[in-house]
């Protein structure tokens, strides 16, 4: 038997781990793009929002741009009147994300080759603004519920099994089933991405590009194809993150702000490391939940807004490249 206070802390920690998994999912998309093209992609969060909006829209049979059509033509249309099966909608959304990746390469990246990193970064902020407006115009800005058949609610199994740890009046840990699914999905995603980049031909090409653009070009790897590929994968990861967050808290604008939460995760784990994104996500998730639990009540609460950044900042002062980042070598 353990004291209640300790058990609460453990429960907070477990929930922090689960939240960390979700941060890591977003951070993963950042890392992929940063590794392959050196672009710090601020639009990753908005990509997740856009993917989730598209998924819900397709599933519910919403007519795209209904609001705009109604405003310009004076009609009153909203729905096609069908209900699409979740799996088909997901596949179609993946298709949309691939089209989006092609469009991004075609209209933005192609024209910005060899620009300074800050210019590319600004371009992704512009992209984020554009996509945010585009998603809203296409599917409407109201809060939507996303339901693709993922299990919801507290996991009774975990509750029952853990109830024996505590004494009288302790009912076990409260863990959302959705979080467990998210953790499993993240694990599968990371393993398959690692396998993909280690063993497939495209994966090797991707790593070659990440290593050295010029050398990759000279051995005949198409940079443009690799960029489309990377942005498609990032779009897919964004879709997964969008599904998880959307199922948890509804599809709405605030979804795009999780990108900001993913940034300290990246700093902690290093911009270039996939395991770093996962470990960083977990540290941030647990850290901020525990901090809010222990110190939060003393200083007014809502510390989750900034704790992650300050943690990452302090950490970076001691290790500027993050936990797993490549050592920064500077040449003059």
């Amino acid at each position, binding site marked *: 038997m353990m004291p209640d206070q300790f058990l609460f802390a453990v429960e907070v920690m477990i929930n922090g781990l689960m939240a960390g998994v979700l941060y890591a999912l977003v951070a993963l998309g950042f890392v992929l793009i940063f590794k392959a093209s050196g672009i*710090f992609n601020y639009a990753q969060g908005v990509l997740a929002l856009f993917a989730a909006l598209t998924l819900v829209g397709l599933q519910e049979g919403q007519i795209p741009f209904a*609001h*705009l059509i109604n*405003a*310009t033509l004076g009609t009153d249309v909203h729905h096609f009147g069908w209900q699409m099966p979740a799996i088909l909608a997901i596949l179609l959304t993946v298709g949309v994300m691939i089209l989006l990746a092609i469009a991004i390469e075609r*209209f*933005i990246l192609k*024209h*910005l080759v060899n*620009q*300074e*990193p*800050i*210019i590319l*970064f*600004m*371009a992704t*902020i*512009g*992209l*984020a*603004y*554009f*996509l*945010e*407006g*585009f998603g*809203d*115009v296409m599917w409407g*800005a109201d809060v939507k519920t996303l339901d693709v058949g993922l299990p919801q609610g507290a996991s009774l199994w975990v509750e029952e099994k853990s109830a024996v740890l505590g004494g009288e009046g302790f009912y076990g840990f409260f863990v959302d089933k959705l979080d467990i699914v998210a953790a499993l999905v993240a694990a599968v995603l990371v393993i398959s991405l690692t396998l993909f980049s280690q063993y497939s031909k495209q994966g090797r090409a991707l790593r070659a590009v990440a290593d050295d653009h010029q050398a990759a070009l000279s051995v005949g790897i198409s940079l443009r194809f690799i960029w489309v590929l990377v942005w498609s994968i990032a779009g897919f990861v964004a879709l997964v993150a969008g599904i998880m967050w959307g199922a948890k808290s509804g599809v709405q604008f605030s979804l795009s702000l999780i990108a*900001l939460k993913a*940034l*300290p995760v*990246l*700093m902690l784990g290093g*911009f270039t490391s996939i395991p770093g994104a996962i470990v960083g996500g977990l540290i941030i998730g647990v850290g901020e939940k525990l901090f809010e639990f222990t110190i939060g009540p003393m*200083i*007014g*609460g*809502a*510390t989750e*807004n*900034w704790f992650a*950044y*300050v943690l*990452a*900042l302090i950490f*970076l*002062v001691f290790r*500027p*490249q*993050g936990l797993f980042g490549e050592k*920064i070598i*500077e040449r*003059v």
Partner: protein
Amino acid sequence: MFYREAGDFKTSYVDDSQTFPIRFDRYRYYAVLMVAFAVIPFFVDSYWANAILVPFLIYAIAAIGLNILTGYCGQVSLGTGGFMAVGAYSCYKLMTAFPDVSIILHVIAAGFITAAVGVLFGLPSLRIKGFYLAVATLAAQFFLVWLFNKVPWFYNYSASGQISAPERTVFGIAVTGPNTEAWAKYLVCLLFVMVLAWVARNLTRGTIGRSWMAIRDMDIAAEIIGVNPLKAKLTAFAVSSFYIGIAGALFFAVYLGAVEVGEAFGIQKSFLILFMVIIGGLGSIFGSFAGAAFLVLLPVLLKNVLVGTLGWPTDLAAHIELMIVGALIIVFLIAEPHGLAQLWRIGKEKLRLWPFPH
């Protein structure tokens, strides 16, 4: 023909080192000042002042501040909103604590307080570079906004959590509070803009500005030729935050009158000002003005066209506006990565020969 650097002979060192050494630039500068000080105040009405001119002037100050840090010293910062909040809240605390002291002094003092905070958050820049630093400055943004939300002392324990500016006068004319005339607001901001822009231009031409630019271009090489990175980076943070703090103080006291910190100084503000700097042109004082003007005018214009002329619902117009702003930023970056300032430079090249071909 019209823009000539040649034939403009200087006979003294004072002439040679004046702020605008080229005659055409100087006359243009005087003409702009004439119009700004002697013409506009007589015609400005409340709509023009509140929707366009005052926000333009205040954002111009903030953009110059960020340009000093990002454009001249190469340190990307996403904490501008947070530093503006420091300026606003320190101005508010000073205004309420010392009601008899002039508001002008309060605003300047708010600038110095922000400079101190800026140096504090600039310390990590000595270890962290590039995007890591950009993300690190987000810590300042979120922490400061949280602080002003959670600690009631900063907003004098007011029930709403807002701060609102009491009425203060300069030479007997109200410049803050609800009874302020449009032209008074405009003139106060204009005065600050003129002095600060002049100081910024001369700072960036001098030793300190050159050391910033050396750090920006290559910090290790700069260190080897004897630029002290600690001094250069921290002075850039200090000067930049001073400007941003003054912009924040004016934004609160003169422009809005009452603010809620998360709404007025959130992360969106940081991005907005960074956009102004990038679209205007990194490392250019003129660019800061051009970028501020562009991003203040664009939403007003779009709103007038979409809602006023086409009659679309406001929420749809707001989304379309987001799309257009986003697309314009991308188009701008592709067409002219060096911003509006570069267009101006090209324009001057053209004016040199025009209307002759060679």
